[in-house]
């Protein structure tokens, strides 16, 4: 929306950098990053303003501005609608000179942004969305898929639960593309590990009342009720499961996509025992705790979720690559990001594969009982660690045209 004049100092510094480096130059001498996120709906707390904060913290921590680069972070609310999201993306790229789009929870919006980014040769650091298609059929040389995806969730939670004895499943699925994908991937894992799927039921998105679906799940006597849904659907189904005494009756709920903020919204008495796979937890080690200590006070006390962490880490690595390359040309920067291994305080050491998938370990966690928790946001205990090379879908299985 607003135009930026060149900073004379910045021009001089940039000019000095171009000596001997052909035409490599950062466009407009400004690295402009756009956090496209959900500011007002079901993903606000797990991304939203926290993602913007994470991006800004990453810019500060990288120190890149002290070395003469100018960086700006803008943000917008896609309201979970692909048309709004793609409209903002287009406007950002065409008019506002944004170079990279970050975050974007909601796979529908992310897929649209993925295409537009490719058409305009910019960069998309997708730390928010879940669809494994972003590194599969829809993979792009301009996109890096950070944090998590549906395959990882299915294999993480699904695989671990089946191996630890949860061998009969009943699915409660949100009836849209994301829910179907998650259910399909998880079912595959359950069957592969010798488990059985006793039934499934599809609930419309944004269902208020899951009681009838939960009754069916209860009647199936499956050991595990897999919740292939997200956001309000997940918290509603969990809340109502507590009312119907499902966990007390011996069945366990498997939240296939649950964030720290969902557990906070539910409260420990209701959420206890829930099995969750995340790739980041603020209380895992000293480095993550230090990050959370800085992050939370600036984010209304809300501790960082894995999506916030993903934004932070992706920005750090992006800025490193831009600085090394001295250019923000879309395809080239992403190639550089894949060339350089990643190392950040939140995810540790990792790599970005040729299909755009960032790989790092995943953690299978269980929500603590109220008595086990020492304070607010102390919610998880780590049950297992899935190493990076097993956490994500093997390269050859993705149908990505970039993989030869």
């Amino acid at each position, binding site marked *: 929306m607003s135009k930026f004049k060149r900073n004379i100092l910045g021009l001089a510094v940039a000019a000095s950098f171009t000596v001997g480096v052909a035409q490599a130059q950062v466009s407009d001498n400004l690295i402009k990053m756009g956090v496209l996120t959900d500011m007002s*709906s079901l993903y606000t707390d797990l991304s939203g303003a926290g993602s913007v904060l994470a991006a800004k913290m990453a810019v500060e921590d990288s120190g890149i501005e002290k070395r003469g680069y100018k960086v700006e972070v803008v943000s917008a609310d896609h309201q979970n609608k692909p048309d709004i999201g793609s409209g903002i993306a287009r406007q950002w790229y065409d008019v506002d000179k944004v170079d990279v789009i970050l975050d974007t929870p909601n796979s529908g919006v992310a897929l649209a942004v993925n295409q537009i980014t490719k058409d305009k040769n910019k960069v998309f650091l997708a730390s928010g969305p879940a669809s494994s298609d972003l590194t599969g059929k829809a993979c792009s040389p301009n996109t890096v898929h950070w944090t998590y995806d549906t395959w990882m969730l299915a294999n993480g939670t699904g695989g671990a639960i089946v191996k630890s004895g949860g061998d009969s499943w009943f699915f409660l699925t949100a009836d849209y593309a994301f829910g179907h994908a998650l259910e399909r991937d998880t079912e595959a894992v359950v069957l592969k590990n010798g488990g059985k799927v006793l039934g499934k039921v599809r609930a*419309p998105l944004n269902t208020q009342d899951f*009681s*009838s679906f939960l009754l069916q799940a209860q009647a199936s006597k499956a050991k595990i009720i897999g919740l292939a849904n997200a956001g309000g659907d997940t*918290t509603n189904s969990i*809340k109502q499961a507590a009312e119907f005494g499902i966990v007390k009756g011996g069945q366990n709920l498997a939240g296939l996509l649950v964030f720290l903020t*969902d557990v906070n*919204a539910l409260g420990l008495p209701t959420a206890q025992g829930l099995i969750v796979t995340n790739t980041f937890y603020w209380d895992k080690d000293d480095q993550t705790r230090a990050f959370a200590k800085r992050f939370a006070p600036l984010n209304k006390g809300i501790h960082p979720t894995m999506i916030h962490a993903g934004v932070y880490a992706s920005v750090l690595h992006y800025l490193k690559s831009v600085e090394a390359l001295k250019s923000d040309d879309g395809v080239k920067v992403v190639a550089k990001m894949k060339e350089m291994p990643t190392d950040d305080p939140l995810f540790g050491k990792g790599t970005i594969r040729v299909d755009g998938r960032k790989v790092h370990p995943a953690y299978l966690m269980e929500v603590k009982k109220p008595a086990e928790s020492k304070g607010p946001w102390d919610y998880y205990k780590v049950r297992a660690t899935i190493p990076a090379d097993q956490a994500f879908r093997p390269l050859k299985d993705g149908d990505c045209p970039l993989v030869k």
Partner: protein
Amino acid sequence: MEIFGIPTQALFGQLLIGLINGAFYAMLSLGLAVIFGLLNIINFTHGAQYMLGAFCAWFLLEKLGVGYWWSLLLVPFIIGATGVVIERTMLSRLYKLDHLYGLLLTFGLALVVQGLFTNFYGSSGQPYRLPQEFTGSFNLGFMFLPKYRAWVIVASLVVCLGTWFVIERTKLGSYLRAATENPALVQAFGINVPLMITLTYGFGVGLAALAGVMAAPIYQVSPQMGANLIIVVFAVVVIGGMGSILGAILTGFGLGVVEGLTKVFYPEASNTVIFVVMVLVLLFKPQGLFGRER
């Protein structure tokens, strides 16, 4: 034993659940029917007022420590009062115009209220703790019925039948009904018709808010809760007959049961079944199942 492939146990469980949903439909459509039947206003804001009721109860509990039972009493009056303000300042100006302007006004108000709350509270919802008396369930053999949901059925039946009784069988109710038929004449008898209209609107809104308080412990208290529900409730009112109190009550419970059954046999259609019924009813009996010709 099985009926259509579903064990009878499960079937009765679903019917019971359907009845509970029907209770909410009935209470909400009751408020709408009262407002339309007596005032000829289509109150699109009803969903937002239901949401306001839930938020008010949440606010009272979280910030002021006021518990559920007090909320049941206070919240309808508080939100009903906001309804009175709306009626006095805005709706009353539209009575001489086409009904559709009232619809558009209340639609706009609903957007404003919803938008404001979404801005301040996001839409992931706030939890509302179940009151102590209601934790636990009745073991009915074929299912566990949470105590709170049983209370919802009972309470809504009481409210619905109570309202029906007041309107159809008491003197006050007869004044209201007469005032709608012929306001000038009734006014000539010395009855303050504008005041009755205002209070009636406030009462309808209060009913919505009451439904909101009762919904708070079951659903998340979220700014979107009304928007998702209002279209369905409209369908219920239209099927029951726009002006018929009894129609709204019976249709509300009835449609809850129909929806529950659909969830068992064909869950993907559970959202649309009510609209299909509505289209059919409008085609063959446009005044609704219990409505009077207008």
